């Protein structure tokens, strides 16, 4: 060995002696090593977090991509029947911005909902009486919000705003914030999992891709991990063809033994973290067959969720998987369901959409109740904006289309410390403007963070010269009326 490497080795030995017995077993170091921009708590969250005891330990967020029409499902507007094919009054529209898909329309004829509505539950929530027979039964478990509003009017900026608080993609989404601040509650699965369900009607889908669940300026470990119903559930979770498990286990052991030598030589905490991540990867691999094997679910599960739940990728199947992940203490489960962008043919598309989600949502609420998880699991349901009362394209008594409408829309939450049976917010007769208790998405975010145990104002990351918050720079408030 030539001189320079000789010196190097001597120095290394010296360093090793100086490190003394401080090896891999050191717990203090282990805690120190749990990387991140700020000091971490023992489960990988931030030190000092949560700010107070959380009501919701986990979140299952069911995003309806495209923007469901609030007045066809939850925002009952009986007066509209008299307005059929009459023009939306300027006094209601007030020159507000439209998308260019309808801004050129000569007329804005009102399209009353073709569906019957009825009041459900003790709370008396008005709901579509034809398409949601199961969800009706949960009316008193659900916290209804009829006055959400956003600034965004096109899909991508609107989904980004709903998930990251900012219309421009590239900011961390809710799930990343949860993972970053609170850490992981389990040892063998990611903290933040994303699943995309396949709708039974695929007439007009929006692209759903990783930019929506990126960790933005937070470390990559907080990005959503896509969990797929086809192919590998988690990317590369399965061994390459021909690699027997026994061989693989030895390989991982071999890697970690060699990494230990590197760690002993150079003492870089990153090496230690990498050893831990290979252990975690091995546990993820080991847990996957059991997790994804629905054949062990009892028959009554499929009675509850419906037979659809057996079909990989269906919404029912994905929601059942969400429950299994929640049971295993995955912190944040983001689910997308597509094809709610009903510019035309509401009549032809709405029934399939509702059929996809009605039973599984009911099942999830009841399943979580049976398992004693409803109290600390927050379910969120809703799209990125609402839809217009006026028709886009052709209008008849039985069919119509609706354009994007950011000024008011309905979402709901259940469990996780929310107030069952609460009905918050009111819109005008046209479901066009909010007349009572507007709920901006930043207030909605502040409220979700509150349920997770955060003070949204004290939860920020410095980036591009600003203290970045999920709730943005403008004042946001926790809406107490939504809390149990």
């Amino acid at each position, binding site marked *: 060995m030539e001189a320079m490497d000789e010196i190097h080795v001597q120095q290394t030995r010296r360093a090793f002696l100086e490190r003394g017995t401080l090896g891999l077993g050191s717990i203090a170091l282990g805690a120190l090593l749990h990387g991140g921009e700020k000091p971490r708590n023992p489960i990988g969250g931030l030190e000092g977090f949560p700010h107070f005891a959380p009501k919701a330990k986990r979140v299952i967020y069911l995003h309806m991509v495209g923007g469901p029409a609030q007045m066809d499902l939850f925002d009952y507007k009986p007066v509209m029947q008299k307005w059929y094919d009459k023009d939306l009054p300027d006094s209601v529209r007030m020159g507000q911005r439209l998308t260019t898909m309808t801004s050129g329309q000569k007329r804005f004829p009102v399209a009353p909902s073709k569906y019957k509505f009825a009041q459900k539950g003790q709370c008396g929530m008005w709901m579509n009486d034809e398409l949601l027979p199961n969800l009706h039964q949960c009316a008193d478990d659900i916290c209804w919000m009829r006055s959400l509003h956003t600034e965004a009017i096109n899909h991508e900026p609107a989904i980004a705003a709903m998930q990251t608080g900012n219309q421009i993609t590239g900011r961390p989404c809710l799930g990343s914030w949860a993972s970053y601040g609170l850490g992981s509650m389990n040892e063998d699965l990611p903290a933040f999992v994303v699943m995309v369900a396949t709708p039974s009607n695929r007439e007009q889908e929006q692209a759903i891709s990783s930019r929506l669940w990126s960790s933005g300026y937070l470390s990559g470990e907080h990005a959503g991990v896509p969990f797929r119903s086809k192919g590998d559930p988690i990317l590369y979770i399965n061994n390459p063809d021909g690699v027997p498990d026994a061989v693989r286990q030895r390989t991982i052991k071999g890697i970690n033994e*060699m990494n230990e030598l590197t760690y002993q030589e150079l003492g870089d905490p990153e090496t230690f973290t990498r050893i831990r991540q290979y252990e975690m990867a091995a546990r993820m691999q080991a847990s996957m067959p059991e997790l994804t094997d629905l054949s062990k679910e009892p028959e009554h599960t499929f009675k509850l969720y419906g037979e659809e739940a057996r079909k990989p990728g269906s919404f029912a199947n994905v929601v059942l998987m969400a429950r299994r992940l929640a049971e295993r203490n995955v912190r944040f489960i983001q689910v997308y369901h597509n094809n709610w962008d009903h510019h035309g043919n509401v009549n032809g598309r709405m029934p399939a959409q509702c059929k996809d989600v009605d039973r599984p949502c009911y099942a999830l609420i009841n399943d979580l109740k049976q398992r004693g998880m409803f109290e600390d699991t927050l379910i969120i349901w809703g799209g990125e904006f609402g839809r217009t009362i006026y028709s886009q394209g052709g209008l008849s008594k039985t069919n119509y289309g609706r354009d994007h409408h950011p000024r008011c829309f309905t979402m709901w939450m259940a469990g996780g410390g929310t107030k069952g049976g609460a009905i918050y917010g009111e819109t005008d007769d046209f479901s066009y403007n909010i007349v009572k208790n507007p709920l901006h998405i930043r207030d909605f975010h502040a409220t979700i963070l509150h349920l997770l145990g955060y003070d949204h104002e004290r939860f920020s990351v410095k980036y591009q010269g600003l203290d970045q918050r999920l709730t943005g720079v403008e004042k946001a408030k926790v809406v107490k009326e939504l809390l149990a």
Partner: protein
Amino acid sequence: MIALRHKTAQSAFIICFMVFLPAYASGESAPSGIHWAFVKPQRPSTPPISNTKWPCNDIDRFVLKQIEDSSLQPSVETGARTLIRRLHFDLTGLPPTPADISAFENDSKADLDSALEKLVDRLLSSPHFGEKWARWWMDLAHYGDSDGYLTDQLRPVAWRWRQWVVEAFNRNLPFDRFTIEQLAGDLLPGATTQQRIATGFLRNTLSNREGGADLEEFRVLQVKDRTSTLGTVWLGLTLQCAECHDHKHDPFPQEEFYRLYAFFNNADELNINAPLPGESGKSAPAKIAYDRKRHELLEPVSDRLEALQKRWEAKLLDTENNPGRDHHWDRELELLGLIWGGNLGEGQLEGLNILSKPWTQRTPIESARLQDYFLRKGSRIDEKKFKELRIDELVEQLGELETNLPPITRAPTIVKHHVYRPTHLHTRGNFRRPGKEMQPATPGALHPLQSQGTPNRLALARWVISADNPLAARVVVNRLWQEIFGRALVITPDDFGIRGARPSHPGLLDWLATEFIRRDWDTKAMLRLMVTSATYRQSASLTPASLARDPDNVLLTRYTRQRLSAELVRDNALAVSGLLNRRIGGPSVRPPQPESVIKESFSGKWEVSEGPDRHRRGLYTFIQRSAPFAQSVTFDFPDNTRPCTRRIHSNTPLQALSLLNDPVFFEAAQALAARLLQEGSPSTHERLYRAFFLCLARAPLPSETARLEKYLAAQTDILRNAPEEANAMAGKPIEGLHPPVQAAWVGVASILLNLDEFVTKQ
């Protein structure tokens, strides 16, 4: 998980204060009252130090001064083998070969300093140098091969700018010219095609072609992106904070954002012919023939066509001025903006720009292009006439003619708008609420812009990179430093403003900045200084004591280990296994990736590249913005909607799964095993020795050899009992070798490609 070095651990914080604040207060660079970064750097004298033997160049004097002031010591010099691997990654992004290593070791026996000079010279003149540093620059430009947003259409010509960047780094284009050509190459007197291609830098903004998108809204967003990109990349300022209101911390009123915006508000997107060598020769005669035949084809109906097209244009222009009167024509106008050049990467508004030019001011190319569009999409003006003139047949014949034109490479560029487009302040950032008119001007808190009359983009570019600019040189050397040392001198490389971090080594930063200017913006010279410094040559070894004292290595008492970037992790595996295709330049390629990822993009398509294109370097991988390459994402490929000034280096279980199971890494393991088994000595010991040199640029320790030999024996045993698996795992059979043995070596190769050391520069 992120390394400790990113922690704002309290101890490091205290060190920062102890170390540089006193130096600062002594007035080295900040006259009272003005924020340090807004004052032009003065050349500091090198500080006095005790250990005069340690420094290799002036960088080290500044570094050592602070180390000595803290009563610490630098680390010893690292070994030659570690050093050459480090240098190879930093300068070319590729690992050294065993031959490179032994050549350097031989040279360094005689004289390390001159061996190092020679090595650095060789690497700086390697054509791979440009590849490595082009990717660094692409992060800032937020390069992508598609539009972004919902429909995320393709930009199959975006790479032409990337090629320019690779070449610019390789020929060491001085950074001032590098800057001017990218911001305003089109405005240079007698602008060459190359200089115009350079403006492709400004074409990396997103384009929204979603139905219903407001064209002006998204054009405005592009202009805002260009404005804030200038701020981030050259000024290290968060100018975008002044988009809606006055900057909360820095002295930039909202008006100044729009004065800067005004420079870019007059920049239009335009794709041009940018022939590669050899293309022009074939294409020129074919184009002449095409033009002649086109003329012949259209001549019989040309008068009637012209009259019809003029009616169509008049209708569109009228619609633009009076929107909302006719839904169909609103839609026609919108379509012209939405579909023009879709999936070809042409400027989205090129068609509208031609339309708004008087007929007589259009170039022949512009006239032909708008005519092409009109013939294909303009029938709404008069369906009957379109039938009468049999335009569909003409279109078909034109299409046939076009197939005879040899393809010519095009490039995205920027040109000045044909008339002056006035800029108004956007009240609260909303372009629908125009405030008073804003003339182009640069921020008042910075050095003045010298110009006669209304300054244009070229004047702005010269202002940005002027020697009077207090920021540009500092901001750029800071990022070069960060790329080499892993931690920037100003740890907020995108924010040199009042709320940004203070430099850990103010004197060094200013020395480097002034040196950069003194050396006429010679980027390679600056990198040479950094990598030949004693600071760079230190060992990466750390102790609990040094870790506790300075976890972030603020004081540079050691070399900071850094995980390789997403691209380099893959490049490295391909290189050591012999799979890497080292071809330089050309269009982006699409290596295989899982179907489930492909399906996530709007188009759901990913035409997998064939043959050696599957194994190109990562910087050539097609970037579909809505569904970026899966392996890259796992290794922290940045969001590319805005400039990325600092890559995150996370450490996650998904990375472990990728390195273990992603077919490309497994294929590399098989190829590496085959290489070890087929090349060189048949002794296990020798093979392991060679494997270590290939992958880690060093010899194995006896303990490592022992472990791997044991592993080999055990794996071979398991695989002997699983012949089918062994065959699959081994890959392509090697004659005369038992598949279980070959498969066990694949296992060894996989271990090496998964090591922390393998994916780390140390």
